[in-house]
């Protein structure tokens, strides 16, 4: 145990005495949180929506068929009550819901104005605004058609738009979980991999191996400091998002930190696996960047919506741990879900972690080469 503590202490010396490492560790999360506010806008195709048609008359059916014909939307299900709709939103099955009131046609043709409710999942604000504006323009087209070219619209449909989860359409909810995934990937995977490979490269691993300290403990004591530093990073990012970006955390802090710890451990096992398989710091860094960071950016759903990708890419996204972490963090932070809402994603992360842990254990060498 004393050896372990001495080792962890030594590891902290390494980190704290290297200005570049310190900068990557603590400068980057701050910079990224501030920079990523300007997220990219994306065109949305085949967004899955739900329709709650309480009228079931000719006018509502006409409007629904226009919405489906536009190509932007795909009706996932016809829901019959509000609680079902709520569930569909929470599980992420739908991005948007349209609710026609009873007597829609009656209101429209007799009272000359009717209402229609449009509810969007605004935890991804870009997608939500794009989708609602598409719906609005389809409704306007329909109105114009009914007017038959008259200058004054005789029949008015007023869409009542509601943004779920993120009514002010803040960009932060979207990118805070993304930046968290990105930073943890960078710190936990790359830094761990590099710090272990550095011992190989500088030859200190030779001295460490020729000692009573078990080689597996060498690796484990490397992971501890980075676990602690990563947790500090998570806390920094969360505190910044609460106090600087005014984004309250809807769900439980404890659950959020527990899930973050799980993801950090996932990343650490990935980092250790890379370090076992590589011999130089450059290779370890390249693999961490190309093999981990790039997929995290592309396939976590943080920059590019996964629903819009071709099927093969959607399948690939399933093996990217950051995707599951991103879903978990969004669910807790923004939707306020409890563990019952994210246990599937948690289980997948645990499986990925176990897989790489066992793989590392198998390929770990107690000698050089």
């Amino acid at each position, binding site marked *: 145990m*004393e*050896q372990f503590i*001495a*080792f962890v202490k*030594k590891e902290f*010396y*390494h980190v704290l*005495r*290297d200005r570049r490492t310190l900068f990557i560790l603590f400068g980057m999360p701050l910079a990224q949180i501030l920079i990523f506010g300007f997220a990219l806008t994306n065109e949305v195709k085949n967004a899955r929506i739900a329709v709650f048609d309480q009228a079931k008359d000719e006018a509502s059916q006409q409007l629904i068929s226009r919405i489906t014909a536009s190509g932007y939307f795909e009706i996932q299900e016809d829901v019959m009550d509000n609680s079902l709709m709520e569930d569909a939103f929470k599980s992420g099955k739908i991005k948007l819901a349209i609710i026609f009131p009873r007597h829609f046609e009656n209101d429209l043709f007799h009272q000359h104005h009717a209402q229609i409710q449009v509810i969007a999942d605004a935890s991804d604000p870009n997608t939500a605004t794009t989708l609602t504006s598409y719906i609005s323009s389809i409704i306007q087209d329909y109105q114009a058609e009914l007017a038959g070219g008259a200058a004054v619209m005789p029949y008015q449909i007023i869409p009542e738009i509601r943004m779920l989860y993120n009514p002010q359409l803040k960009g932060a909810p979207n990118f805070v979980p993304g930046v968290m995934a990105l930073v943890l990937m960078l710190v936990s995977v790359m830094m761990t991999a590099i710090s272990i490979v550095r011992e190989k490269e*500088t*030859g*200190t691993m*030779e*001295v*460490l*191996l*020729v*000692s*009573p*300290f078990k080689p597996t403990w060498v690796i484990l004591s490397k992971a501890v400091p980075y676990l602690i530093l990563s947790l500090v990073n998570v806390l920094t990012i969360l505190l910044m998002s609460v106090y600087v970006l005014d984004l309250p955390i809807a769900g439980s802090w404890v659950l959020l930190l527990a899930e973050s710890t799980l993801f950090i451990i996932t990343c650490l096992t990935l980092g250790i696996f890379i370090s076992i398989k590589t011999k130089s710091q450059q290779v370890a860094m390249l693999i961490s960047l190309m093999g981990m960071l790039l997929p995290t950016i592309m396939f976590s759903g943080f920059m590019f919506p996964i629903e819009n990708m071709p099927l093969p890419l959607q399948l690939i996204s399933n093996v990217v741990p950051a995707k599951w972490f991103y879903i978990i963090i969004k669910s807790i932070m923004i939707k306020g879900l409890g563990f019952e809402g994210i246990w599937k994603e948690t289980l997948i992360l645990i499986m990925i972690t176990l897989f790489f842990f066992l793989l590392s254990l198998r390929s770990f060498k*107690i*000698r*050089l*080469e």
Partner: protein
Amino acid sequence: MVEHSASGAGSSKKSLNMIAVNHISKTYNGGAVKAVNDVSFTVDRGELFGLIGPDGAGKSSIFRMLTTLLLPDSGTATVNGYNIVTNYQQIRSSVGYMPGRFSLYQDLSIEENLHFFATLFNTTVEENYHLIADIYVQIAPFKKRRAGKLSGGMKQKLALCCALIHKPTVLFLDEPTTGVDPVSRKEFWEMLGRLKRQGITIVVSTPYMDEASLCDRIALIQQGKILSVDTPQQIIAAYPDQLYAVKAADMLRLVQILPTFRPSVNSYLFGEYIHVDALDINGDGLKDDLIRFLDAEGFKGIEVIPISPTIEDCFIKMLTS
């Protein structure tokens, strides 16, 4: 001083030898590079044993096999009675190893490095301070300095302290004096002599032939093969011929002309002299012939001195014959 390890799993047959190497071989790149080729030798307890050979002779590979860092392709070896393959854990806890490259933490200070390695071996600096005392006092004034900022000689002293701090039974030093200035080299060998007197078995490798005479016994090694294992005195005594040191005013021409003197004569530059070794004729006959030959060639300031060979001459002799 000698540690008895009767209870060890691999020490069923207790021998006098601290290290016994039996026909070990090691190849790299799937057999393409033969680093160590059928090497056997033994090291006695308390002995200062030298592996002498040029770069790439396979010295480091032998060290890494004996310190259990590499597995031999074939052959067996024991260190303090422990098998290097099956009892690797016992060897790792009982030997001290100083790799060829400086392998301490450059961003840790002298003090921090020493304490870290002491803790790693379940001991403290205070407990075994007497072992390192006369080495450590030389670097103690700089103990707050980072290891990366030390001079070559100081780095080696620190590395030696770190390898000694757990009171090893055997000390493996892979080229400890390479890249170290002559004064520090001399000091370093004096330290090894003192450690030897404390009963520690030391195996040291070096490419410097002049350091060979400081060892109790040496193994001359070239291209993975051992040419000879003996005391330096015996190796020199076994030199078969009379060796001459030759000098003249025009050394450049002398180097070119000497090979034409006689086909059986071997000559090579050695410091400010040229060493000439005759295989067939010994004694003054050769000396007179040589002087006459050089006179005829018009050399001025001719010197031909009979000398006793150094280890390097023995090494060259073994390579050419």
